């Protein structure tokens, strides 16, 4: 792929404005889509093979097809802009620098599933992004691109921004719906899936920001063009978020042909490990997926490619850790996150996450015992697959993957009664061994 499509203009001044967007061909895909039947829009998206960019990689066209169009109730699009997966910051860039692409995707989505309203659920911490979205929405509304009788076609599609208030779990699709309804962001039992009973009990499609941003490209250039941008079943452009111990952290757009190794080392992307250190491991898809070792990176950074190496592309949040990183500390850090963010609905996740975090803290402080390692695996195994949503698996994974891959490091903590790798970038209290 020669040049970026989603992020082509994001570094140009005023790229987020309606003027800039329409000058660069914006809203033409919407015009084209409104002249198509909803069924043919869904067919094109299906044929493109677009897979959801939020983490699960589910085909978007199918998701839209499943929406119960025979229902007499209203239908809704919910755009998931609750970007909270640790290591993920791609939707942040799209919304702040290219919001009209998202609006266009939402409107085409409304047309496809027969919704009148799309809600963009944005995390509360993105307040400055929300301001931009609201301002640009107002401009698009004034220009007749959003609201009633768009382009004089007689179609009425509205977009509203809904601000969250700090909850990772709100990124789970049914929890997002609960939160939009004004409740705690806790997941629902599925089925019924949102396509049948979603927001206010109505048929609903929940789509990630990046997913919806791809839709105008598909309508404009066609399904075959889109599919050909990447490997089979992994078509289209992809945004990668690279953070941690790399020289050039940032959001990079590339095809899913790109080897994971290039994303970490190539000068066009991560640029290699900072300070000339050696790589220890990579978490390729946000904190909820298994780690990959340096010799496992020669795979395409696609949904299927990363899965073939035993991990997941997830939200494409690539967290890079160098040799100074203690993996017990890293697991403890992540379990602090999962303990804090557990919604509390399912017992294995609520109690198990806290238990895992306590044990990891004990081992990291040098107070652990060898039998704690098997206890960790046992608790994590009892969370895995035993909760309503994928959060439980996400919380168990950092423990399972680090104990299995770096068991000797855990054992060294127990044997030496201290952390053998107290990196200088960690808090002082830890490095001087208060053990």
């Amino acid at each position, binding site marked *: 792929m020669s040049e970026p499509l989603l992020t082509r203009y994001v570094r140009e*001044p*005023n790229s*987020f404005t309606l003027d800039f967007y329409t000058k660069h061909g914006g809203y033409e895909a919407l015009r084209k889509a409104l002249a198509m039947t909803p069924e043919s829009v869904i067919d094109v998206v299906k044929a493109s093979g677009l897979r959801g960019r939020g983490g699960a990689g589910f085909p978007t066209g199918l998701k839209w097809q499943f929406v119960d169009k025979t229902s007499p109730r209203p239908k809704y699009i919910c755009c998931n802009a609750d970007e*909270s*997966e*640790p*290591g*993920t*910051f791609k*939707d*942040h*860039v799209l919304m*702040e620098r290219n919001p009209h692409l998202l609006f266009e995707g939402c409107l085409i989505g409304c047309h496809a599933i027969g919704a009148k309203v799309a809600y963009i659920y944005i*995390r*509360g*911490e*993105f*307040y*400055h992004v929300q301001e931009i979205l609201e301002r640009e929405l107002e401009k698009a509304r004034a220009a007749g691109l959003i609201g009633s009788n768009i382009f004089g076609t007689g179609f009425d599609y509205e977009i*509203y921004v*809904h*601000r*969250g*208030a*700090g909850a*990772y779990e709100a990124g789970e699709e049914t929890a997002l719906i609960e939160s*939009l*309804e*004004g*409740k*705690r*962001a806790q997941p629902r039992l599925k089925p019924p899936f949102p396509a049948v009973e979603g927001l206010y009990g109505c048929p609903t499609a929940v789509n990630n920001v990046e997913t919806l941003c791809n839709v105008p490209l598909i309508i404009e250039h066609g399904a075959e063009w889109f599919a050909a941008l990447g490997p089979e079943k992994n078509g289209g452009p992809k945004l990668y*978020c*690279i*953070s*941690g*111990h790399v020289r050039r*952290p*940032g*959001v990079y757009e590339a095809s899913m042909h790109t080897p994971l190794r290039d994303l970490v080392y190539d000068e066009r992307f991560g640029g290699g490990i900072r300070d000339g250190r050696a790589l220890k491991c990579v978490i390729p898809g946000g*904190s909820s997926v298994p780690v990959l070792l340096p010799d496992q990176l020669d795979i395409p950074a696609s949904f299927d490619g990363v899965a073939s190496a035993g991990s997941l592309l997830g939200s494409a*949040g690539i*967290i890079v850790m160098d040799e100074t*990183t203690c993996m017990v500390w*890293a697991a403890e*850090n*992540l379990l602090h996150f999962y303990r804090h963010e*557990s*919604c*509390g609905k399912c017992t294995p996740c*609520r*109690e198990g*996450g806290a*238990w895992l975090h306590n044990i990891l803290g004990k081992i990291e402080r040098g107070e652990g015992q060898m039998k704690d390692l098997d206890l960790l695996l046992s608790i994590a195994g009892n969370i895995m697959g035993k909760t309503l949503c994928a959060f439980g698996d996400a919380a168990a994974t950092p423990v399972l993957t680090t104990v299995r891959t770096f068991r000797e490091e855990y054992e060294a903590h127990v044997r030496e009664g201290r952390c053998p790798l107290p990196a200088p*970038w*960690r*808090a*002082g*209290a*830890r490095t001087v061994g208060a053990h």
Partner: protein
Amino acid sequence: MNYGRGRYQSARQLPEEGPAFAYTEENRQRLEAICARYPPEQRKSAILAALFLAQQQQGHITRNVMRHVGEVIGCTSADVEDVVTYYTMFYTRPVGRHVLAVCRTLSCALMGAERVTEQLSQLLGVKSGETDAAGEFTLLEVECLGACDRAPVVSVNDHWHECQSPDDVRALVDGLRREGTTSLTGCHLRVAGDEQ
């Protein structure tokens, strides 16, 4: 969620009663404009917005706020408490003029977030979760803020401050004392030549 802390006890922690509370006319209108985004029978969808407005008006959420929000939205104050106690961005205690929220999750931690918190804590004389005696600063540790490329990240009220090395902490605090939030670096995604 505070579940599982210590000995796996959960306790109902009610905010203080607080002074009498009602929205200003302006805020009430803003809230009604937000309610209009949802179907008329779904006013509860606006509850997060209602709480943000109340927090903006009064600084933190009290029992009187919860009662008033319940009346305006059309739900019980128990429903409001349910929501207030779940989401992390609602303060049920008074906070300082500047709330410094240090991202503590992995990508920021790998880049020195623990030391940023440590330095801030020393400089302000408060621990994470506390407010200084003058009511100027509250120090918080929060989970992933979604700007990991600029780690470690600190958010100040609704503003952002990015690319903090632990050594920059003093400049951040001094800047806030001197000029308030105008001293912040803002969002790195802005480009020279952007309209305001």
